[in-house]
């Protein structure tokens, strides 16, 4: 199981890095988004893999997952949304003001 998750994080990161290096705004936004997933999963699994439970005390659950990475990732997801939105609007603004969605001013 650990190996599967490590591979997933690696594959997602690889795709994200490739997208980050593209020359237009939209793939870069996709790349950052994908990187966000990879980082969130990484952070989340740092608390260990607990199946079929929930971080609720006094509910008769025997094994509890680590709540701290969960709390961190929860806010990270919401902030990631804010940042993606910011980037998308930035891309729109760049397109509107410059008439081009390349990131290097038309350089190929």
């Amino acid at each position: 199981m650990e190996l599967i998750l490590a591979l997933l994080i690696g594959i997602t990161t690889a795709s994200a890095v490739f997208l980050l290096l593209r020359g237009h705004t939209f793939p870069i936004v996709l790349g950052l988004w994908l990187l966000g997933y990879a980082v969130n999963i990484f952070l989340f699994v740092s608390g260990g893999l607990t199946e079929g439970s929930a971080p609720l005390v006094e509910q008769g659950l025997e094994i509890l997952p680590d709540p701290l990475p969960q709390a961190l990732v929860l806010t990270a997801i919401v902030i990631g949304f804010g940042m993606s939105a910011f980037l998308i609007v930035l891309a729109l603004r760049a397109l509107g003001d410059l008439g081009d969605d390349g990131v290097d001013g038309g350089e190929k």
Partner: protein
Amino acid sequence: MLYLLVSIPFIGALLVYPATERLRLPPSLVAGLMALSALVLLLFIGFPVYSGAVLLSRAEWIPQIGLSFSFRLDGLGLLFAELILGIGVLVVLYARYYLTELEAGPRFYAFLLLFMGAMLGLVLSENLLLMMVFWELTSLASFLLIGFRRHTSEARQGARLALFVTGGGGFALLAAVLIMGQIVGSYELSDVLASGRLVADHHLYPLVLVLFLIGVGTKSAQFPFHFWLPHAMAAPTPVSAYLHSATMVKAGIFLLGRFFPVLAGSELWFYMVSGMGLSTLLLGAYLALFQHDLKGLLAYSTISHLGLITLLFGLGTPLGEIAAIFHVINHAVFKASLFMAAGIIDHESGTRDMRKLNGLFKYMPHTAALAMVAAAAMAGVPLLNGFLSKEMFFGETLVLKWLVEAQWHWLFPMAATVAGIFAVAYSLRFIHDVFFNGEPVNLPKTPHEPPRWMKVPVEVLVVLCIGVGVFPNFTVRPLLESAAAAVLQQPLPEFSLSIWHGFNTPLVMSLVAMGGGAILYSGRKWLFRAHDRIPFQISGKQWAESLVESIFQLGEMVDRLLDSRSLRRYSFFLLAIVVAAGAVSLWGESFPAAKALTPVTIPVVIGGLLLGAGSIATAVWHGKRLLAVIMLSIVGLMTALLFAYFSAPDLAMTQLLVEIASVILVLLAMYFLPQLTPPESSRIRLARDITLGVIAGIGVAILSYSMLVQPLDSISSYYLSQSKPGGGGTNVVNVILVDFRGFDTLGEVTVLGIAAVGIVAMIGGLKIWGPEKDWLGRSWAGDRHPVLLTTVSKLILPFALIVSAYLFLRGHNYPGGGFIAGLVTGVALTLQYIASGSDRARQRLPWDNLKLVGAGILIATGTGLGSWVFGFPFLTTTFAYVTLPIVGKFEIASAMLFDLGVYLAVVGTVLLILAGMGGLHQREENV
């Protein structure tokens, strides 16, 4: 009391503006009263200092780095504080008449008080780091004052030059102070002074001394850093009278006195300090004679006198120190009055050029008399204060304990006499050239006496010149003794202050100086011609400006080297460096599995396959943008399922909702963006990027795997055990968010709000139009608001709101909470916007989303501040239990109010972002 004393000028600087505007008081009155009250307070609390007491006040500021708010009033500080405040009061009075209220205004007096406060803080600081803070503050305040006439380029250049030189010196001084503090082990002045020869015997002593002298020399305009002072004469004359006689330029001198017991007494000190002083003394005196600008003459004479004081400190003899301090007082008094007189002449005749100013005596006899007395004091004429200290100076140059054997011990008395000759000559020029010597030439105005009160400050200072000159023992001796004792830190030697010491060598030197000065002045025409023929004039100003210029050029060069103006290249290098750094630290490490691996299950395999395939597909198909977004949302959904599978219901919910909001957002944006990405990269580039991506992926995978197989040692058991008793909730994730780590959450919500505000700002004024058809050439659907969607969305809204309220209320104990409920509400309301168009939605949801975000953050912060009212730290929570039908027993916690703030901020942000994007479409529709 010392705190009050130091803060009075700063309070005054803050008060000048409101007092002038609200109470219609003249700013000069406010400033004058402030300075006067500080002076009275100083005289009152300073009384015991005359008998040798040292007043100390101490409060911690940043104890970790040794910085404390501690002040000290000893003899030396008292002397300088009296000069700063006393002359400050006179300068304010003088400025009242010199500057029109329109020109001066509250800005001028605020700067002046700021400077006064900075100087006062500097001379009264007990903590060395605090002293440095005030030191820099004086540089900044003097920059503002010198550049006060900001519409003239000389003022701007002069101010910049002064800041450049003194600010640069400040760095050196800071370094010296830091090293000194490290050697002594304390930044408190008392400890440093008590350390004896510790610093002087340390192997870093030469470095400390050089850095220290650079700081002192730049501030006190010592050769070779003197060149900024004449250019600072672009300041209004009251500023010159204040900064360049008594305060700013004496700050360096003050430090020489302050650290005399610590640093002095070595051969190095003698050569460096007296050498610097001697060259400054001669150069300043020589150049002063050749200035045609009245203030220029005074500026170079100031440089020369500062050199004299420095030289006296450099000699290192106890009597020399007494003479130095004595001359500090005398120079401040006569030079301030001379600057003021020069200002009067400028003010009433319209020029400061001595080639035009002649024969003013018959136009302004009163002013002339005052200026002549002050100038005579500057020349060192008997019965005036300048004579006494100059006589002591001449005497000290004759008894040099260091140079007795050296064959050039005659150098000092010789140089002193030459400087004396020049001082007499330029003083004569000031008197004769301006007030006599024929008739004025082409004056812009007919000169006349200034207003009565404008002369009062000059009169006070001139009376002091005479009073000190005739009755030194009554007027100045107590002050001098306490200050000298503070400098020397040992019992004072016998010294006599009197006009007549008998016919001795110093008197002969004085007489030679006066005679020589008169002869030199009478031959001035020939001298001026000779001086003009000197082919090269070294301009420190040009040198400094070209240095600044070359620093800028260097910066541009480095910038050109590093900045390729290509985001792709930046990204590549950044990512490559990160990957390389990771590879280097992972290289050769092995990560044996330290615990039993979790068995593989079928759902994880299926989900993992989908997630991985989705990621790769997003990358491969990024050119077809719609397809790429669909692939990306598969990854998002699988991530949500992964969270759910591995026991994180809160995360799964959040991820799902964010996924919905994101997809809406991207679809809204994609309408405007090109729908296809053109093939853009060469094969080499593609191969390079794929390689980097794969390496990064492998690295991260290894890292993740090695992390996952380590035994878990978490701090979370604390949260698990304290969640219920400490936070009152059973959903530990939520309790962490709103209670344990509430401060983090507050920051995160604020970041979210800032992102929303930025988005609103970028959307405003955005001019962008979508294409007519999609990329396959099909027209868009004609029905913009389908009836079905409009109807369904209206039905859904109340249910969605109930669900979000339910999620919010139970969030403390079961999965849910402010973030999740906020997202549900936000998405539900966004649906309204989509279904009925943002114009109609806005009619039905009439609140301002920006204010909603602000209210949310305010409520969250307010909850945190609320705990202060009850005497608990920021964001402490409390709770009680309530039972409601249906929802069941839940608890009302103050954390809930905090969560409400989070909720509102999230709703507002989601709406701002999505409705803002929707507004773009609406605009297009309305056109």
